[in-house]
C-alpha cells in the first residue's frame, strides 16, 4: 500500500496563529483506498492540518498535491477531490435531507431544482446506510449519528476521492459509531475512497485504520501501518514520553476543618443533578464526563454562569450561592474559561492589563488607576506564573498558547479566590507549559489552601493533576473517588457507560 504513488501528498506545511505555532513543517502522504488515522493530543495540530488540506486555512508555507495536480493552498479544494466532515456538524436542521446533501454542490445551477438529483442522492443515502430516511424529511428529525451519515453522504455525492473526518464519533454512542464505521469500511472497499479520520479514541484507531500518522506539537512524529503498532507505542508517540503510572502527587487537602465547598440539592433541571458534595480546603478535584454529561455545566453553575440552577452552595460553612459572575467573584469563587481566545483573555490588550483586569479596584484609588500599583501587581503575578515581566507591555496575542493560558490563570488567581474553577485548564497547551501549570496549581492548593475544581476531557490531565476524581454520565454522578482508586480504564468506563446497572 505504501509503495504506490500517493493520492494526496503534502510537504512542509507550516502555520502559526499569533505566537502559537500550530504546524511546524508537516509532511503527509495518503494512498488511494486507505483509512488513515490522525492521532495527537489536543493542540497537536490535527485540526489545523485538516483545515489546510480543505483549503479553509492558508498555511504560512508548504505545498499540496492531489491526484497528481498541484492544489493552490488557502482556497477551497474541489469537492470532487476532497471533502471534509467537520467536527461541528454543518447540518442545517430546518432544511430537508436532500437539501443538506446538495448544499454547496457544484452541479446546482442558479435555479435550484431538486428533481434531477433525487435518484443520485437516494443512491448515496442508501450507500451510507440511510435507506430508511426519506429525502424530504427535515434534518432536525434525524439522530446525531444519522446527521453524521448525511454529512458523509454529502462528501460522497460530490464524488470525493478523499474524505476527511474530524472526530466523527465524539458525540455518538457505541452502536451508532459501529454503524458509521461499517459505512466507512464499505466506502473504502467499494469506491476506493481514501478516508482520513481524527479520533481521540485509540480503540477506534485500531479497529478502523490501515495506517496511522501521529502529530505532536505541530510536528510529524511517525507514520506506520496500524498492524505494526501497539497501543503503548502509539500513546508514547502522542505524548512524547512513557505514561506515568502509579506516580500520584500527595494531596494537600486540609482535614479536620469545615469543608471549603458544600453543595446541597444542587441541580439544573434537564442538565445535571449533583448529589450533595463537599470539598476540603487545599483539595484538587477533577470533574470528568463527555459532552452532555453535565460535568462542565456543574462547574459553570458554581461560578453563577447557569441561571436556573437550584440548591445552595456554602463556602467555609457560610451560604454564598452565586447568581452571577460578579457575585461569584465577590464570594471568593474564581472561574477560568475553556475558551481562552474568546472569553478567557483580552488577546489585543497588554499582558499586564490582562493580569490586573479582574482586580482593577485594587490598583485604583478614587477611581484613578495607579500605574505603579498595576506594575507591582502584574509583575508579582507574572513572576509567580513564570511569565517574563519584561513582556508585560506586549499584547497577549504575541504569546504562545501555554503562556496565554498562564495569563488566563493569573488574572483569575489575582482575585485571591478560596475556590478556583478551571474549565479545561490546559487545552491547546504544549507539554512543557502543562507541567509548569500543574505545578503552579499544586502550589496554590498546598501553600494557600486554595480549593480547585476542574473539568477536563483530557484523561492524562485528570490523572496527573487531581487528588480526587468525580465522574458523570448523562447528568448524574457515577463515582466520587480518591485519585489512587481510579485509573484511565475505570474513568473511561464510567463516562462512556455510566454506572454498571445502566450499562446495556
Amino acid at each position, binding site marked *: 500500500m505504501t509503495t504506490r504513488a500517493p493520492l494526496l501528498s503534502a510537504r512542509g506545511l507550516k502555520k502559526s*496563529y*499569533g505566537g502559537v505555532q500550530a504546524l511546524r513543517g508537516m509532511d503527509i502522504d495518503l494512498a488511494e483506498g486507505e483509512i488513515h488515522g490522525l492521532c495527537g493530543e489536543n493542540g497537536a495540530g490535527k485540526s489545523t492540518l485538516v483545515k489546510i488540506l480543505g483549503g479553509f486555512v492558508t498555511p504560512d508555507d508548504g505545498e499540496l498535491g492531489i491526484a497528481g495536480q498541484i492544489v493552490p493552498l488557502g482556497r477551497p479544494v474541489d469537492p470532487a477531490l476532497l471533502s471534509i466532515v467537520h467536527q461541528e456538524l454543518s447540518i442545517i436542521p430546518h432544511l430537508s435531507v436532500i437539501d443538506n446533501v446538495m448544499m454547496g454542490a457544484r452541479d446546482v445551477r442558479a435555479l435550484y431544482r431538486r428533481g434531477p438529483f433525487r435518484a443520485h442522492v437516494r443512491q448515496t443515502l442508501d450507500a451510507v446506510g440511510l435507506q430508511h430516511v426519506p429525502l424530504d424529511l427535515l434534518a432536525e428529525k434525524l439522530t446525531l449519528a444519522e446527521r453524521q451519515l448525511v454529512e458523509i453522504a454529502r462528501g460522497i455525492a460530490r464524488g470525493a476521492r478523499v474524505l476527511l473526518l474530524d472526530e466523527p464519533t465524539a458525540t455518538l454512542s457505541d452502536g451508532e459509531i459501529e454503524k458509521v464505521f461499517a459505512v466507512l469500511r464499505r466506502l473504502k472497499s467499494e469506491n476506493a475512497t481514501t478516508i482520513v479520520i481524527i479520533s481521540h479514541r485509540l480503540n477506534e484507531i485500531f479497529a478502523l485504520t490501515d495506517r496511522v500518522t501521529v502529530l505532536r506539537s505541530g510536528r510529524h512524529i511517525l507514520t506506520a501501518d496500524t498492524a505494526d503498532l501497539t497501543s503503548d507505542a502509539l500513546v508514547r508517540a502522542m505524548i512524547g514520553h512513557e505514561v506515568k503510572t502509579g506516580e500520584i502527587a500527595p494531596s494537600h487537602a486540609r482535614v479536620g476543618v469545615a469543608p471549603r465547598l458544600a453543595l446541597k440539592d444542587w441541580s439544573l433541571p434537564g442538565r445535571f443533578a449533583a448529589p450533595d458534595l463537599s470539598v476540603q480546603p487545599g483539595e484538587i478535584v477533577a470533574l470528568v464526563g463527555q459532552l452532555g454529561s453535565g460535568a462542565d455545566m456543574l462547574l459553570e453553575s458554581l461560578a453563577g454562569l447557569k441561571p436556573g440552577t437550584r440548591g445552595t452552595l456554602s463556602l467555609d460553612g457560610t451560604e454564598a450561592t452565586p447568581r452571577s*459572575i*460578579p457575585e461569584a*467573584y465577590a464570594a471568593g469563587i474564581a*472561574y477560568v*474559561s475553556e475558551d481562552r481566545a*474568546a*472569553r*478567557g*483573555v*483580552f*488577546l*489585543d*490588550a*497588554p499582558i*499586564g*492589563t490582562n493580569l490586573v*483586569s*479582574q482586580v*482593577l*479596584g485594587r490598583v*485604583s484609588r478614587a*477611581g*484613578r*488607576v495607579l*500605574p505603579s500599583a*498595576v*506594575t507591582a501587581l*502584574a509583575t508579582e503575578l507574572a513572576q509567580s506564573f513564570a511569565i517574563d*515581566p*519584561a513582556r*508585560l*507591555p506586549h499584547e497577549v*496575542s504575541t504569546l504562545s498558547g501555554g503562556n496565554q493560558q498562564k495569563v488566563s490563570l493569573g*488574572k483569575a488567581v489575582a482575585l485571591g479566590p478560596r475556590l478556583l474553577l478551571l474549565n479545561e485548564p490546559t487545552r491547546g497547551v504544549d507539554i512543557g507549559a502543562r507541567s509548569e501549570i500543574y505545578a503552579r496549581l499544586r502550589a496554590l492548593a498546598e501553600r494557600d489552601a486554595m480549593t480547585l475544581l476542574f473539568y477536563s476531557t483530557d484523561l492524562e490531565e485528570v490523572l496527573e493533576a487531581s487528588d480526587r476524581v468525580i465522574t458523570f454520565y448523562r447528568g448524574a454522578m457515577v463515582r466520587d473517588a480518591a485519585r489512587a482508586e481510579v485509573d484511565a480504564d475505570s474513568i473511561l468506563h464510567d463516562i462512556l457507560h455510566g454506572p454498571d446497572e445502566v450499562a446495556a
Partner: protein
Amino acid sequence: MSTQSRSAPLPGPLSGLFAPARVQATVIQIATVAMFLLACLTVDNYATASNIASILYAASTVGIAAVGLASVTISGNLFALSLGSTAAFASIIYIQLSGLGVIGALLGSLALGVVFGLIQGIVVGLLRCNAIITTIAASSLIAGLATAFSGGRTVLATGGPSWLGNGAILPGIPWQAVIFLVVVVVAELLLQRSRTGWELRLRGTNPAAAELAGLRTRRVVVLSYVLAGAGAAMAGALIAAQSGTGNMRVGADLDFSAIAAMLVGGVAISGGRGRIIDVAAGTLFLAVLTNILLVNNFAYEVQLMIKGLAVLVAVTAGALLSRKKR
C-alpha cells in the same frame, strides 16, 4: 504608548509610535502638521488669525461630537447615528434658553443630550438591543420631537453674539477651541487613567471576556452613550452660539463628519483600540484638509468626495494593519 505600557521600558524611544497599533495615529498627526505648514508657505494669506480661527471653529464642533462618539466606538458598539438630530435639538434648546445666559443655555442643551444618551445607553447596555438600530431609531425620534418642539421653524437668538459665539481668548484662538481642548484632555484622562476608562476599553477589546472578568460592562456602555449624547448636544449648542440660530439643519453632516474624524485619527471600528488624542488629530486633519480645499475654491462636492475618500483610506489601512498582525 498607552498608560499601561509605560509601566515597563519600551525597546526604543520611537518604536511605540510606529507599532502596528499606533502607526496610523502617528502618520495622521505628522500629516496634519506637514499639511498645515505646507499650506502656510504656499497659500497666500493662509496663516492669518481669521483663517486659523475658521479652521478651529469647524474642528471644535465636529471634534467634540467625535470625542463623545469615540467612547461608544472604543467600548465596542460601532457607531451612534443619532448625533446629528441630537445636535439639532440642542441648537434649538440653546437659542430658546439664551435668556438664561451662555452658561445656562449650554447646561440646558447638555442636559438634553445626557437624557437622550442615557435612554439609548439603557436600551443598548441593559436591554441589549442592537446598537446601530437603536441609535437610528433614536435619531428619528429625536428629530421628530425637535421638529414638534420648534414647530419646524428656525429659532433666532435675540441680542448680539455672545463670547461663546465669536469670542477669542487670543487672536485666532476662539473660546470654542479652548472648550474643545478641555473636552479632549478630560476625555483622554478619563479613558486612559480612570478605572472606568480601563473597563470601557477592555469591554471594547472583547465584550465576552469583559463580562466574564466581572467588569462593570453595562455601566460603561450606558456611560459611553451619555458621553456621545452630551458631545453631540455640546456641538449643537456651539453651532447655535456661532450662528445665532437653531434649527433642524444644524448638525446635518455631523454623524458622518464625527465618524470620519474618529476613523481617520486611527480609532478601530471594532473597538478597544484608539485614543481620544487620535480623535483630536483626525478632526484637525480633516478640518485643515477641508480648509485648504475651501481657500483654493474647490466646490462643496469635491470636499465631500475628499472626506469620503479619506475615510475609505483610513478603514482600508486599518483592515490591512489588523491583517498583518494576525
